[in-house]
């Protein structure tokens, strides 16, 4: 892997609709989709027509972006990735029927393997799991993990319960066993309002609130003791915005000093735990405009190891080809582009 120029850790393949997935469904669920007229599963986390969901110049004549391997040309040819990790954002996590969710997750993952991974050796993917039932989720990890092109387990920033909760720990045991990081991507299963103050009026509030969802998940994972129980586990925060992290850790660590008797298994500062176990993808980097100030906020992370390169293609996070935000220190770029991803995704090294 020494010739790798960049690993793009967040690329979104678009499911064109049921016609693509139904060949991968069991007969029962294929019939159900047809007979019940089950609609497609696009989530309001990324309204299909919204400017943020796909940059205008990434959309094809049918308005879809990233609908096929050929559409990923910017990721590889323009921005120089040699490996890209696919994170499908299709509303599997929103489904209420846990059996249906498991069937749809299997179909989605198999579609990814056949229609994407088989067609381009540069592609890797995350395993979408039906967290509606943790046993189903573990089954799906076990089913797909032997295929080493699946390099991560994909969850959403907002779900039914905080991700540290003990009932979910079999998931982390499976992920750790298979050397799969847990990727937490922006988005909600809409089991709860996207803010602690209820439902907002606008989509822009929903998207902005994702950064708060990530804070809640990190607080939960650390406070519940997930990293004490699973010391080899890595968590990647994908499309999180990044810059909320330092001040969040200052607050969290201060409270930990005052309240640590409540969570005795948190036996060192949450800031240290996060730097050891948590990684963040680069785009979007919610920074100030001035490159010198971007450099300051990067410095506030106090680690050269936590950022992983991502384009977030086809989401509209940057204009032109400015995939690397201005202000990233030159000495850090190689780590972000290559070293940190390879250290985080153990499976990338073996292929």
């Amino acid at each position, binding site marked *: 892997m020494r010739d790798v120029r960049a690993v793009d850790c967040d690329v979104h393949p678009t499911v064109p609709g049921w016609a693509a997935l139904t060949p991968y469904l069991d007969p029962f669920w294929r019939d159900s989709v047809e007979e019940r007229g089950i609609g497609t599963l696009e989530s309001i986390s990324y309204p299909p027509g919204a*400017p943020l969901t796909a940059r205008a110049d990434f959309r094809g004549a049918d308005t879809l972006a990233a609908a096929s391997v050929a559409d990923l040309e910017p990721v590889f040819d323009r921005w120089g990735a040699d490996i890209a990790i696919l994170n499908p954002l299709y509303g599997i996590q929103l489904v209420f029927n846990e059996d249906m969710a498991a069937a749809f997750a299997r179909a989605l993952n198999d579609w990814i393997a056949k229609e994407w991974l088989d067609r381009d050796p540069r592609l890797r993917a995350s395993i979408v799991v039906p967290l509606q039932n943790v046993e189903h989720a573990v089954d799906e990890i076990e089913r797909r993990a032997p295929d080493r092109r699946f390099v991560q387990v994909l969850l959403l920033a907002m779900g*039914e319960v905080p991700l540290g909760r003990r009932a979910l720990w079999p998931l982390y045991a499976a992920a750790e066993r298979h050397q799969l990081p847990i990727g937490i991507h922006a988005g909600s299963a809409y089991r709860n309002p996207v803010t*602690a*103050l209820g439902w907002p009026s606008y989509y822009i509030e929903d998207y902005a609130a994702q950064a708060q969802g990530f804070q809640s998940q990190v*607080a939960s994972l650390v*406070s519940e003791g997930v990293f004490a129980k699973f010391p080899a586990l890595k968590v990647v925060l994908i499309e999180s915005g990044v810059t909320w992290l330092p*001040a969040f850790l*200052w607050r969290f660590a201060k409270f930990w000093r005052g309240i640590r008797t409540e969570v005795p298994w948190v036996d060192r500062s949450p800031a240290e735990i996060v730097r050891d176990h948590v990684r963040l993808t680069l785009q979007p980097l919610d920074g*100030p405009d001035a490159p010198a100030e971007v450099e300051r906020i990067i410095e506030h992370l106090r680690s050269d190891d936590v950022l992983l390169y991502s384009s977030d293609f086809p989401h509209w996070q940057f204009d032109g080809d400015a995939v690397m935000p201005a202000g990233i220190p030159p000495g850090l770029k190689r780590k972000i582009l290559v070293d940190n991803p390879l250290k985080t995704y153990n499976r990338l090294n073996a292929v």
Partner: protein
Amino acid sequence: MNVELRQPLAAARVKPTVIDCDIHPTATLADLRPYLSNRWWDYLQTYGERRRHGFARSYPYPKVTPRACRRDAWPPGGGLPGSDVDFMRAQHLDHYGIEYGVMNPLSPTGQGEQNPEFSAAMAAANNEWQMAAMTGREPRLKSSIVVPYEDAQAASAEIKRRAGNRDYVQVFMLSRTSEALGRRRYWPIYEAAVEHGLPVGIHVFGYSGWPTTATGWPSFYIEEMTEHATSSQALVTSMIMEGVFERYRELKIVLIESGFGWLPALGWRLDRNWKRLKDEVPHLRRAPSEYIREHLWVSTQPMEEAEDPDHLIEVMNWIGFDRILFASDYPHWDFDDPFVALPPNLDAEQRRAIFSENAKRVYRFA
């Protein structure tokens, strides 16, 4: 060696003029009895407080100390921390040379009560009690107008009832409301505040009825505490995106006990998102961070503690040293001591701004 270094620093720190923007006075229900009608007193005896959580006589997340208070803040003569004005004067106001203290009553205030009429009665009782028991006996202590915010018309009426008395220095709300504070149902509160030239202080806590996180209920008090910052981020987002600051150009919001380190990153995120999605919110005429810069003040406690203190000062610079107010949170366990709470590497002008000048302007202290 340590002693030699610390003494000059300590000398530089003592006797700042301090305006403390977050002091918690405590009334028991019995203290409020004179200000409640028989109807509401009887209601309280029969049905008790019914906030948007399940515990009749307790909190969903047990605090780290009894009533979340400093163990040395219990008055030697009896009663609850924050209930004895003489003890508060000696332990806090005189000890630290507090010039003014803004009182923010937390409970039992009826804020967020399920029964809106009871909420209004409790708010009024708290406002009268603050004046009689505290401000009337210690002029450095200023009162906040507790409002029954879930009924904005009643809240507006309560503001109008109190605003003529300049010892009430702000309208007082909590952060966890049943809808985000930008929603139009709350606008009559802002209208009344602006009409009477009062800032709106929004203190963390309260029970919205929604889970404390967007991913459900957490397990621990430490999470409840960190989540106050996320709730505050959501309420600032809501106030900006709903256009509150376009409608009320004079509105001043003081965020209390939410910390402040998160504010610059929120502004950057909202600006980025607005560039992409501005056609959804055409009523905004400026970048979100500009509304933050113009309409928001933050208070210090619980002061974030950066591993590298210079990083915290950079964040304070991004917010603006004219926008940060000192708050101690007396008598709670996470109290910030005025003598040592601010980063030691602030210059004299920055310290003066935070300790008193900014508060004088926003609360219009003489």
